[in-house]
Structures are given as C-alpha cells and as structure tokens.
C-alpha cells in the first residue's frame, strides 16, 4: 500500500477519533437541576416529563419545564415544537386557562418551558387535564393525561367580571421570594375571550395598595402602580413590604381610557378592595 493512500485514511481516522473523543469529554449537564418532577404524561412513543420548583401544580401561576423522552432510545428530544392545552372539566361545560407558548429554555438543549395559570380547582385537586401536542421532524404527536392541581393557600390569582362585562384573570407572578424591601412586582392580566382563549390584556393600569390586615391595615410607602411591559407581556410595579407576614395587595384595574373596571380604594370603612391578591412570607 502506498503511503499516499494511507495518509487520507489515517487523517480521517484521526479526525473521527478526535471528534468522538471531544463528544465523550463534554460534561454531562444536568438540565433539570433544582427542579422537581410533577408528573409524566406518556403515549406510545414518548414520555413527556413535567417539572417545576415544587413538584406540584397549584392554582395561580405555574412555570413548567418540559422534557420529551423517546421511549425506545431513552434519548431526550432536542428539536420538538410543542403546544399545550390545559382543560378543566366542569359538570356542564369545560374551559381552559391562561397559558404561554412553549419555548426552548435559554441555554438548555432538552428542556422546554412555559407557564400556565390555573384560576381554580376542585377541592380534591381533580378536574384538570393537560394535553401536550408536539411535532418532531415533521411528525405530529399528542399526549394527554389528568393532572392534579392543588389549591394555593393564598389568593395568588383571581378571575373576575369587569364593569365592561368582560371576564378577566389576574395572577401574581413575582416576587417569588418576597423580602422586606421594595420588591419587583410582576402580574399577568388576561381576558377570557371565550372558554378556550385567554389573550394578554395590553396597556391597562393596575393600581396597587398593599396592606397588612393583621396590623390595622398598615400600608407601605413608595409603591408604584403596575404598568404593561410589551417585552414580557406582563404588568410591572414596585411593591414595598415593611415586614414579613400576611399582606393583601389591593388592586384596581383601570383600562386605557381611565375607567375603573374593578376594585375600590381602601379606606377606614372599606378595608379591602374587591380585587386583591394575597402574599405571605
């Protein structure tokens, strides 16, 4: 064999080996570190794994991380397109709830992410199901299962009828870990267009008045009303908390014409707005 034939083979071998060596050396990143599995939803080909920080779905805002495992190979799919549809089965009807698109988590390969806001649940956590539709390399799949949604202790979301005869859903998103300071308050606001569609409401204002009922309805200074942020489609404001404990965030929903759709000012006589969220830390 002539050397000129051997050389390319050697080179190819070398490169191939090099490449595979690189692959083997790449650290195995645990992409679900600090996340707790809520449950799996399986179909014939795949297992959909659902995670969040607590391992439970609860009423209110739920940030969900998702992985799709191919059953045959135990490989996690990196190039799926996902969407989902949570559904509440009531005695006479069924409805969905506000939810986001599902996108790939930033900096991760196998984890997808989205949020869902359960506005209510049954006392035993039953009633909700979740359908995940996804496509991999042009093939569509679907997986569905009943899920358990527990009732949150505090009112972190509420659904209400505005004076414009529209039904809205508002949900507390942040602060996740409230502190004795000026916290960034982030709230989602959705309109119930029909039983299945809950578009984000844009450019309204949500007036904020946090109070501690346990302390004679003590308020705090330097709060700001929430305004719409077009980047994350959420409402942001400053929430100052002067001590730990139970806080009621009294709210007033004001549309872009300045009309109050829901909620009242807190006074000596009227100690709580009809629109409020609760916080405890």
């Amino acid at each position, binding site marked *: 064999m002539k050397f000129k034939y051997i050389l390319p083979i050697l080179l190819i071998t070398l490169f191939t080996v090099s490449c595979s060596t690189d692959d083997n050396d790449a650290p195995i990143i645990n992409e679900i570190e600090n996340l707790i599995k809520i449950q799996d939803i399986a179909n014939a080909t795949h297992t959909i794994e659902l995670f969040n920080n607590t391992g439970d779905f609860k009423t209110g805002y739920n940030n969900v991380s998702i992985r799709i495992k191919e059953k045959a190979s135990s490989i996690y799919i990196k190039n799926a397109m996902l969407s989902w549809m949570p559904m509440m089965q009531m005695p006479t009807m069924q409805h969905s709830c506000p939810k986001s698109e599902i996108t790939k988590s930033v900096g991760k390969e196998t984890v997808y992410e989205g949020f869902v806001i359960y506005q209510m649940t049954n006392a035993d956590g039953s009633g909700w199901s979740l359908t995940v539709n996804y496509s991999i390399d042009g093939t569509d799949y679907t997986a569905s299962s009943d899920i358990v949604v527990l009732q949150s202790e505090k009112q972190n979301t509420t659904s209400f009828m505005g004076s414009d005869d529209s039904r809205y859903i508002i949900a507390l998103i942040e602060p996740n870990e409230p502190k*004795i300071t000026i916290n960034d308050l982030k709230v989602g606001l959705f309109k119930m267009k029909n039983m299945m569609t809950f578009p984000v409401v844009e450019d309204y204002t949500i007036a904020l008045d946090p109070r501690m009922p346990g*302390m004679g309805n003590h308020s705090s*200074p330097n709060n700001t009303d929430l305004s719409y942020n077009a980047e994350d489609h959420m409402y942001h404001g400053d929430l100052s908390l*002067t001590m730990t*404990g139970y806080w009621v965030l009294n709210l007033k929903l004001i549309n872009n014409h300045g009309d109050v759709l829901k909620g009242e000012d807190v006074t000596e006589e009227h100690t709580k707005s009809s629109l409020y969220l609760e916080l405890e830390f």
Partner: protein
Amino acid sequence: MKKLIIYSIIFLFSGFTFAQEDVTIKKDTTKLDEIIVLGRRKLSNYRQEKTLSSIDEYLEKANKVTMIKRGNYAWEPTINNMNSDRLNVTIDGMQIFGACTDKMDPITSYVDVSNLEKVSVGSGQTGTENGHCVGGGIDLKLPASKYFESGLKTSIDLGYETNGNYKTGGLDMEYSSSNFYINTDGIFRKSDNYEAGNSQEILYSQFLKYNISLQTGFKINENHSIDANVIYDKATDVGYPALPMDVSLAEALITSVTHNYSNDSTFIKTLETKLYFNTITHIMDDSKRPDVPIRMDMPGWSDTYGFYSKATTNINKHKLALNFNGFYNRSLAEMTMYPNDSNQPAMFMYTWPDIRTFYTGVFAKDDFSLNDNETLSTSIRLGYHNNIIAKDVGLESLQIFYPEIDDTKSRFLTSIASDYTFKKKSYDVSFGLGYGERAPSVSEGYGFFLFNSFDSYDYIGNPTLKNEKAIEVNAKANFHNSKFHIGVEASYFHIMDYIIGDIDASLSPMTIGANGVRVYKALSNASIFDVYLNSSYKFSKSFSVNGTLGYNYGTGSNNENLPLIKPISYLAEFSYSTTTFNSAIQLEGNGNQSNYSSFYGEDETPAYGVLNFNLGNVFYTNTNKWILKYGVENILDANYSTYADWNNIPRQGRNFYMNVSFVIH
C-alpha cells in the same frame, strides 16, 4: 451662621475662655466612708438623703440633670434639656449603648451605686472627654484602685420603703493589702407597684433587679498596676406603666482590664490604658398586659468592644491631658408580632437592622494657670465615626424609604471648648464657649418603625442626616462669704441641623392605633437656654437654708417649642446637721409648663410642689459603724406628675423609708 462659627472659633483660640462645669456627685452608699463626709457631700449635693438611692435618684439631684420617667425604673437622664441621643454616657470611660429601641434601658440602669465611686457630669462640650456630645457627658466612675492595707472590711446595707413595698439589700466585701485588693459587692432591689397620691396604684410599675460586681487590682511595682472589673446586672419583671410594653429581661455584662502607669519623674505623669467589652440583652414583651391590639416581642442586643489610653503631664503652668480612644458597637433589635388571627403568620422586622458603629478619636485638654486667680482651659476632640448596615435585609428595608443609600456612612466629628475662670476668695466668675458635633444615634439614623408612645407616632430613622452641630455659650458667677452664698449659672445652645422627628403624612403607621409616622429630619436650628440660681445661708454651724431656682427655654427654627423642656423649677431646704445627726425638710416643685410643645405631642403639665423630710444618724459600736437614714417623701401625698413623666404617669405618693448601713472593720 458661618460667620458666627468662625468668630466663635477665633474667640476660642484667642484665649478667651469659659465655664467648665463638672458636677460631681459623690456616692454615699455601700462605700460608706464617703457618707460621713457630710461637708463634702453637702458641697457637691445637699439633697442626698438615702444611702441606697439608685443612680437615677442621685443624678436627679444635679442642677442641670433631669430624669425622664417611663416608670419606676431605668430613668433616662437629660442634661440641659437634652436626652440620651445628645449625651455621651460612659462607664469609667467605656462606651456602652442600650439595647432598647424605646430608650427603656439607659446606661445608668445597668450599674448600681455599689459599683461606682462617683458620677461626673459635664455640661455641654465639657462632657466630651470620652466621646462627642451636644448636651453633655455623664461618666459613671468606677472606684479607684485601693491599696489601703486595711485588710478585710464588710458592709451591709438594708433598705425598706413603704410605697411599693420596696426592698433593697446590699453586701460589700473588700480586702486590701499594699499590692493587692479585691472588692466584691452585690445589691438587690425589688419593688411592687407603687402608689401615686391618694392611694392610686400605678399598674406595671414593679421591678426586680440585682447587680453584682468584682473589682481586683495588683500592683506590679511602684509604677505599674493592673486592675480588672466585672459588673453583671440583671433586671427582670420591670414594668413600664407609661409604655405599652414591659421588660422581661435587661441584662448586662460589663468587663474591663486596665493598666495604670504613674511616675512623677518622667514626662508622662500618668498613663491609663483600658481594654473593655460589654454586652447587653434587652427583651421587651407585653405578656403581662391583658389587653393589647397585638402581641409582640421586641428583643434587642448591643455589644461594644473598645479601648482608651489616657495620659497626663504637666509643662510649666499647663496641665495636659490626652485621651486616645476607640470602640466598635453592634446594635441589633427586632420585632415579632403575632396577629390576632392565628391563621396569619407572625410578622417580623428588624427595628435596628444590625448597625455596626466604629469610632476612633483623640481628645486633648489643657488647663493653663495664667496666674493665681485665672485659669484658662481648652479642650478639643476629633473623631472618625463610621456606620455600617451589616444585614442585607436591613439595608433593603431602609431602601424602602431611601432607595439611594448604601450600607456605609462615615463622618468626621469635631468638638472644641474653652473656659476662662477668674477666682478670688469671695467670688469667682467663669465664661465658656464651645462648638461640638455629634453623629445621629442608631435610632435616629437607622430605626425602622420605632413606636414612640409619648406622641404616639412611629419613627423612621434617616441615614442621610447631617451631623448635629452646636455652638454653646455659658457663664457662671458665685459670691460667698462665711455665711452667705449666691451663685448663678447659665448656658445657651444654638444647635444647627437639630435632629427631630417630622410628620410625614404620606406614610402609614405600623403600630396599631398610632397617630402617624415621623421621619427623623433636621430643623435648620434650635435654641436651648437654661439658667439656675443657687443660694444658701448658714444661720449657725449646724443650721442652714438653701434654695435653687431654675428656668429653661427651648425652641426650634419652626417656631415650635421643643419637647421636654423643663419649666420653672425651685427647691428650698432647711437643714440641721451635726457630725452624728442630720435632718432636713425640703420643698421641691415646678411651675406650670406653659411653654409645652403640643406640636411634638406634649400637653401642659400643671405646677406641683412636694414636701420631703429626712433624718440621718451615725453611731459606733466598738470599731463598727452604723448609719441610719430615714424620712418621708411627698409628705402631703400629692398626686402629681412632672413635665418629664412619660404620658403624665403620676409620681409616687407619700413614702416612708429607712436605710440601715452597717460597716464591719
């Protein structure tokens, strides 16, 4: 104003000088040798009638000192109508800071007369030997080393007062040789609720306290000696009738080691260096109150580490004193509230968010004898003061009000004072000028929703406050002959950036039922003036009469009266004394408080006058000595309160008391 400052400083340096007052109150309790020095005691203070008086009662007798009372225990001293924020209170030069956000534990409450030899009170800038102040300084002096070769000496003190069923007991043991001494003492005080005039029981006015101390010293050689001192003070079940909360524990451990050097033949005549540490735990609670809007616990802690080094020397006619000192303090207080709705979690906040204070400074004083009659004394203190908010939670909570602050604040503090005294046999005059600065206290700078029951406002500290600055002028004149004495002394303070709470109507109070929130701010200036007239006349060697009249005035640049300014006060006393017996009857009172400050939550306190009667005997059995003090306070059982009584809590009604001291040599 700047011109005024410049002129003042020029004035100071030009050598004109002023009154330096150093009121010294000799203690006369368990260290019984002092008691029988009646003449000396009467000179400094003619109103001492109980051997087992608390420090509070002792201090109250000084002209310029008034005690603010929130109950029957732990009174807060004021000098020149300025309270503890504006004073520098030390224990033998040691910095120590109360751990209560509501001033329920002034430093004076953590020591007892048995620990101390004397109390040195400096008015205004003459009180800056140990630290910066505006109103004055109080130094509670520990006993000096006693290498007396007196062997073992024991003394026992017992006291009983009918009002409040108040029992006191003290034991003091001392052993001294030529190069070693040890002194230990303990004191115990217990009082039930006292009764105001007309048998009105004041609920929650009880207290229980004990105090033990150990002092020992060893002389290494002629020039060097080492002293160590430990004081442990514990008060439990202390009621504060004027406040919504009581104290279940106020505990202090105060320790120090001192090295003394003295040598007449070297340039430095004396050099005293002390290292010290003290720690205070203060637990405020309301568990004994049956009816409160909300249950709460408010514990506080204060730890201080420090040192000083004092040197003295003489150069010609100059007597020089130098003091280099520093301390590091940690103040932390928190509040936990338990909602009436048990489903809600406890509410928590830091009321003093772990504030670290570091200070270092230097003090120099020169007493210059111009000639036999004239003395010029000048003192200066320069210091660096630094506050750090150690807890992130603390910084973040204050950022609710002050979003722009960071965790550190440094200040430079200056104090300068000068006194000129002219003294002849039958009269003396002195004149003094001073300029001083102080940093805001922890509460003023960093307090977080501190409820003040006096005006019923929640107070928020302000980390952005400027130094408070005071220009002070004082004058004193005395005339005396063999029988008659008359003296007048006056002080005027012009205080710039006067720190006081200002209502912020936009803030919501935290405390249930509070009127609102005040934020510490500064008035551009405030003026405080006081003048006292003292006189006495001796009818004979043993019979004399004396009287004091005082007038005080205080107003801010907002044209409002300042709070807690003493109205016209008077004292008249007839006394009879021999070497073994003394007796006195005294009338003491205040005029109507017409210049009260409704703006700062005060109401008008009516005039009052009370009559007291005291007697004392000294007698000997073998080598042992007995001292008996007894009398009646508030003979007429007047039901009264003074301007300095928090929320107009009435003072004690008629009280019979007796103190017995027994000294075994």
